[in-house]
């Protein structure tokens, strides 16, 4: 690189500062774990650190470079930061220890990793600003034909919904759950597969744009949001009504709340699988419908007949 194209200080100073903070946290959690406050990492992960602070940094940097009219609204920036913060919090703070030692707390962790966190991140409309600010080689990689070709089948609405529910079922299948909770590698794979799948799913469902450039129409996206409710209710209900302890891992390694019996822990955990995801889906449905209305208002005529039917239906709820 020629001296004339030397990077401006912010380009290297901020990442260097983030790396330094990461190194300090890494050192502290390795050597002084007993002295860490609850809000600092319990088990520091460079992947979690980089995966949280770099997108945040790129997002706000990207926004600063965008034309003011095209920037995501301030509330969107706030929910993006909140979503990233929540994902980092359940993966890294002392909450991680709690989630390792109580079934219902591990379920709340997964609601954050798979539903709430990615949902809030998706509302931040982060794609454009992040791509604008990320290093060029990385941008070329995410925009490459190979990556797009690999993601395309996963974003087909039916496949996306199946993957979304399938991952919930896979990690709750008792033998897999045991192996993924007791082991470190599988635990890591489990949590990050939930985050990535959550992002893939909610970024598509909550995309405000109409079908082209978005991959699926509003109707298909509304159906995705609603379709995943029922299998999750079935899984949650199966756990809630189970009369025997499906997840003995927590008995082996000990529960954080010894006063809560294993079956009660399991019952509450089943409720967490059952109820909050269904509520999130309903919120997502309302958002998709409002996007549809907005797109319709912007366009001279309905975009397609199915969308028109959805719009007529949505008028009952939205009153528009």
């Amino acid at each position, binding site marked *: 690189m020629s001296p004339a194209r030397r990077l401006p200080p912010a380009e290297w100073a901020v990442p260097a500062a983030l790396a330094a903070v990461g190194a300090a946290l890494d050192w502290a959690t390795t050597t002084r774990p007993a002295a860490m406050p609850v809000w600092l990492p319990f088990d520091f992960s460079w992947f979690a650190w980089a995966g949280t602070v770099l997108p945040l940094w790129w997002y706000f940097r990207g926004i600063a470079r965008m034309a003011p009219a095209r920037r995501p609204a301030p509330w969107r920036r706030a929910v993006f930061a909140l979503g990233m913060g929540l994902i980092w919090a359940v993966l890294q703070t002392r909450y991680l220890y709690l989630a390792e030692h109580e079934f219902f707390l591990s379920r709340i962790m997964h609601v954050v990793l798979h539903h709430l966190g990615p949902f809030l991140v998706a509302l931040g409309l982060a794609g454009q600003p992040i791509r604008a600010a990320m290093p060029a080689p990385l941008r070329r990689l995410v925009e490459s034909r190979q990556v797009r070709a690999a993601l395309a089948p996963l974003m087909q609405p039916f496949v996306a919904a199946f993957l979304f529910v399938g991952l919930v079922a896979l990690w709750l299948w008792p033998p897999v759950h045991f192996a993924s909770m*007791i082991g470190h590698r599988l635990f890591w794979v489990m949590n990050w597969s939930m985050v990535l799948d959550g992002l893939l799913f909610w970024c598509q469902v909550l995309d405000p744009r109409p079908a082209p450039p978005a991959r699926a129409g509003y109707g298909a996206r509304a159906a995705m949001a609603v379709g995943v409710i029922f299998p999750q209710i079935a899984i949650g209900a*199966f756990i809630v009504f189970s009369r025997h302890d499906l997840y003995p891992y927590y008995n082996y*390694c000990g529960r954080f709340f010894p006063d809560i019996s294993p079956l009660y822990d399991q019952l509450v955990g089943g409720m967490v699988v059952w109820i909050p995801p269904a509520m999130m889906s309903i919120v997502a449905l309302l958002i998709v419908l409002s996007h549809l209305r907005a797109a319709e208002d912007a366009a001279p005529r309905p975009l397609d007949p199915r969308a028109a039917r959805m719009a007529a239906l949505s008028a009952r709820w939205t009153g528009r």
Partner: protein
Amino acid sequence: MKPLRPLLLALALLTTAASPWHDISVRGEVPALGFAATDAASGHTVTAADFRGRIVLLYLGYTHCPDVCPLTLHNISVVLRRLGKAAAGVRVLFVTVDPHRDTVPVLRRYVALFGPDFVGLRPDANQLARLARRYRLAYAVDPGGHGHPYTVTHSAAVYVFDRTGAARLLIPSLASTTPDLPGVTADLRRLLRGQTAEGWFGWLARWV
């Protein structure tokens, strides 16, 4: 939900039937033996490397525990007696979660009561936090006061590591009056014979 149950049961059976162990195999999932703590016998710091070449049982507890910790250690000592001479290849690490009250002399006298193969380990707060984090073990010490008693809670599990230090088995609890002592003895004997083969099917069954 009904039709799912037989399927689930069949899968559970498949995974357990494929395992030759009486206890729970954690091979390849749980990290290898790794810790540092003060050895109650010598007063010096020991690490996992000092136990290479032996089968290691790891248990968290505290000496001011009148019932369940001595019961667990007693059950382990019964297993060691059943092993006979082969017990010389086994070390039982009793790690105190209450280092404040369990000083080195207390711990040394305590583990000596159970036999020569029992090793008392007193970690400092950071060593204990690292060990518990590594093996997903839980513990809590509440010094009490204001009318509340000093209470200690800890995981009941016993981990078993093989001669190379690899984690092999989890014994859910030996704190019972009817523990599966023949099963635990058979498992330790198997490890002592160095039979590392789990069987392809057992491996597959755990990962499908």
